[in-house]
């Protein structure tokens, strides 16, 4: 592990002891964590805070809450390849044990916030376009599956969505999942898609029903 954040902890743990380090945390995961917030918030940024600071505290205390006129809809807690969390999870402490309990992952600890004036389908499409491009091409499901996912989402966004598309996306969520691919890139790419289909299903269906993106 050569993450700078990890390495920076080492001299302090050696100098001041494990107990001191553990006590810095608000939960059983010891120490501090660098949290980041991006999206349409008042003060996007990164802060070193006690491990286990809640999502709501990070968002509202440090990032200053949502920008004027925007409402919070959800967030990816640890980067593009983590599952969406929503309003009900704002009190969840951001640490490695608790976030998985509510169905996502800590990942990098740098949250991406989704607001009510941004299309969740468009956001997921943007992410999947990125992952499709990032695929190394080694294994079939990732190489050929991710571009397909991207194209279906683009169709939804462009008003060409078909009734079966959500089943298709769910199916991709199953077959680009852990245990089917060579590495974790495709499963990671499926995390925001699978959870978006869970929390924002109405938005997806609206795209198909209205044959357009309601946010455009």
């Amino acid at each position: 592990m050569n993450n700078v954040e990890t390495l920076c902890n080492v001299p302090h743990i050696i100098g001041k002891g494990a107990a001191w380090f553990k006590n810095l945390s608000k939960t059983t995961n010891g120490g501090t964590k660098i949290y980041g917030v991006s999206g349409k918030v008042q003060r996007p940024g990164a802060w070193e805070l006690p491990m286990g600071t809640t999502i709501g505290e990070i968002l509202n205390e440090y990032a200053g809450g949502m920008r004027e006129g925007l409402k919070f809809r959800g967030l990816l807690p640890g980067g593009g390849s983590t599952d969406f969390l929503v309003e009900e999870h704002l009190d969840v402490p951001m640490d490695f044990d608790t976030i998985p309990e509510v169905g996502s992952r800590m990942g990098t600890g740098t949250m991406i916030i989704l607001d009510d004036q941004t299309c969740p389908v468009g956001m997921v499409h943007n992410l999947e376009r990125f992952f499709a491009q990032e695929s190394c091409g080694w294994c079939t499901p990732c190489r050929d599956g991710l571009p397909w996912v991207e194209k279906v989402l683009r169709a939804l966004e462009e008003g060409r969505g078909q009734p079966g598309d959500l089943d298709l996306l769910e199916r991709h969520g199953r077959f680009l999942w852990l245990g089917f691919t060579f590495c974790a890139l495709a499963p990671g790419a499926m995390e925001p898609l699978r959870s978006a289909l869970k929390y924002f299903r109405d938005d997806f269906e609206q795209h198909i029903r209205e044959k357009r993106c309601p946010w455009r």
Partner: protein
Amino acid sequence: MTTDRMVHLTIDDQEIGCPEGWTVYEAATAAGIHIPTFCHHEKLVPVGACRMCLVEIEGTLGLQTSCTAPVREGMVVRVHTSPRAVEARRANIEFLLTNHPLDCPVCDKGGECPLQDQALLDGPGNSRYVEEKRHKSKRYPLGEFIVLDQERCVLCWRCIRFLDEWAGDHELDLFGRGAGTRLTTFQGRPLTSKWQGNTIDICPVGALTSRIFRFEARVWELTNTPSICPLCSVGCNTFLGVKNNEVRRITPRENPEINDVWVCDKGRFAHSFVDHPERLTTPLVRRDGKLEPATWSEALDVVARGFKAVLDQDGSQAIAGLGSTRVSNEASYLFQRFVRSVLQTNNLDHLERMPSGATPLQSLPNLEHRDVIVLLGADPSTEAPLVELWIKKAVLRHGAKVIVINPHKIELSRYGGPWLGYRPGSGLALLNSLMRALLDTGLRDRTGRATNVDEVRAWLEPFGPDRVERTTGVQAAAIRQAAELLAQAKQPIILYGPNWLLEGPAGSAALLPTGAPSEQRAGLVRPALDLVANLALLLGGVEAGFVPWDHNTLGALEMGVAPDLYPGQQPVTDNRVRSRMASFWGSALSPVRGLDFDGMMVAAREEGLKAMWILGADPARHCRVAGNLLGQIPFLVVQDLFLTDTASLAEVVLPATSFAESDGSAINLTGRLQAVTAAKYPPGQARADWWIITQLARLMVPPKQQRAWAFSSPQHVLDEMAKVLPGYRNLDRAAMLAGGWQPPRPQEAQRRVFTRVNAVTPKEDPEYPLVLCTGRLLYDRGALLHHAEPVQHVVPEGYVMIHPGDAGQYGLADGDGVSLVSRAGRLRSTVRVSDEVAPGTVFAPLNVNDAPLSVLFDDRWTWPRVQVVK
């Protein structure tokens, strides 16, 4: 790694036992359980990329790629009984097909395509993909032989891995990433590997297809007849795919003892000579000085009367027969039978005759397990490519070393083994020196079986590596390095080729007069063979195998197309053998030793040779000096596929069949007897050699001998061969047809005594300061390839390779047009300056110039001395 330990596992509720080290895929496949694959190929190292072979293994979280999962005791695997695995494989087919163009109706792979088969067997049957498919290059030539369709490619790495793992030619790779990944060559350079055609076979889709076979036929229209490649001594097993009586393509036929599942590009792509419009389609008879078409009965009548007239007027010694290393055993056997029993003479020979003292290689696959391979005047890459492939396997998989002892560098020099580049003619001195250096390494324990080691030490005294440096041109350090390698070798082998044999005459004695008896001439190669035997004995009695050039070199000798040997290499002078043969052949036989080819040409010059029958050989081109004398033979009959230089001198030309048009057999370089099956009808009136010989015999023999010539098929000829040839009594025809039959090898007395070989330094000739040596290229303009248009594009223009030091001395630069001049003749060529040839030597490849290199040769036994002038 496969071991002897057995592992027991359950696959789809079936109890299976298999050796430890197998993969789940191998175990399932062996048990008859189908698992689809694209990237996996049994001959390649698994990579687990395509995910087609996903299975469920109890106790593991995700699905596993069965091609990479090793079996474990007690493992429980579900292939078709796991809905999740079945679904996953179906999904992967669907993924692959999203961007596959599905242009099966115009794809050459259609009908034998794993993607088609697996889409039907394991796929969903329809696709939900409605988006635009991605576009890449669709008809992209990767060189002369292969066209790439990047849209069909499923990026399985098979072609890349084959070229890396087997051919050692890293010419293909994947570029870009993700969905945009493309298969191509580095910087768009053309593929040059001589093994590239195999990537067409192993491509699981129609991405790599043959430019030669392109749109020639749908594969189901082809009749695939098992055959043997006739283009070198390996005898790769093949299928001839024929449609409308034309050979459309050649594909390899698996034979683990010979070519595994591969074949070289020459064997695969150079087949159009078979259906070439210039094939002889009717007999030709000379009338008023011109060769005119004739019927078979006319032509055979002319031949029979011509031979009879000579027999009556000049006797049987005025007739001779020249056979070939390229025709079938049946043809060779009947030819010598005819010459001996009907023409009553032993004046029989063939060019490129293998000396009877040369020992065939024992096994091709065993080459993989040799740790040091000595190549002595042999270049397997151009002369016998499959030998190269097995050597590369030893090098690439097991780290074997290759010692190249040859006047010029060869492809196998690329692995960094020492290159002992000697001046032609100094080979004997060099090998003596190598032995001396070996003894100096203290190799004593290996030589235990030899009785005269101390004598050898004394003989070799004058051959210290430093002392031979000047005469051989080989650095002492290289000799010592080779000796060190050999001293440490556990399983070394020596392979020597026809070029090595020429070191015998050059380095041993003054030239014999051409009128000398044939045995004496044959004895000229003896020192070269003795030295090989000495080296093998010094290394502890290791194998030394001869690698001949031509398809049926062993067969021509074994069938007795030689002045002193009956079939089975039995001496003509042995009365018992002769009376046995006479009883088989229904005629008394001449006890007089025959003339060899040189003897025949001397007789021609002295006007003692009145008639000659040449079967499948072109001495007018390949032995120009002797060939000039052919015109002085009053009655010359030539039997061949094309109107060769020799044929155009003939009184009668008989059109023969190619390997694709007649049944027969051949013996490959390891002594394996293999069946060749007719795959198509011959063009026009061309007829099989056995038929022509039989018909002619029936015209010539008296009525009571007719029964001795009652052959009605080549199988009948084989029946007689099985009786006549020692060791052939148990000939297994089924084996011969399937994978070849190995006759019992004669028990060779283990040599225990070194033979003294004196090496004479070749005389310098200030007027002609350089020695010419020749060799084969893989693709040339030889008799058959000249008529194989697709490979002609890769034949280089004629050149002469000269060392930079010599080039400097004679003021020559790369690309200079020059004349090669010897005492015998001159030839135009182009200079290639390269340090891949020994100083003092020039190398020129055979069969690429318009005029044959043979114009420079004094005789068939010595390299000519030349000057190179602008």
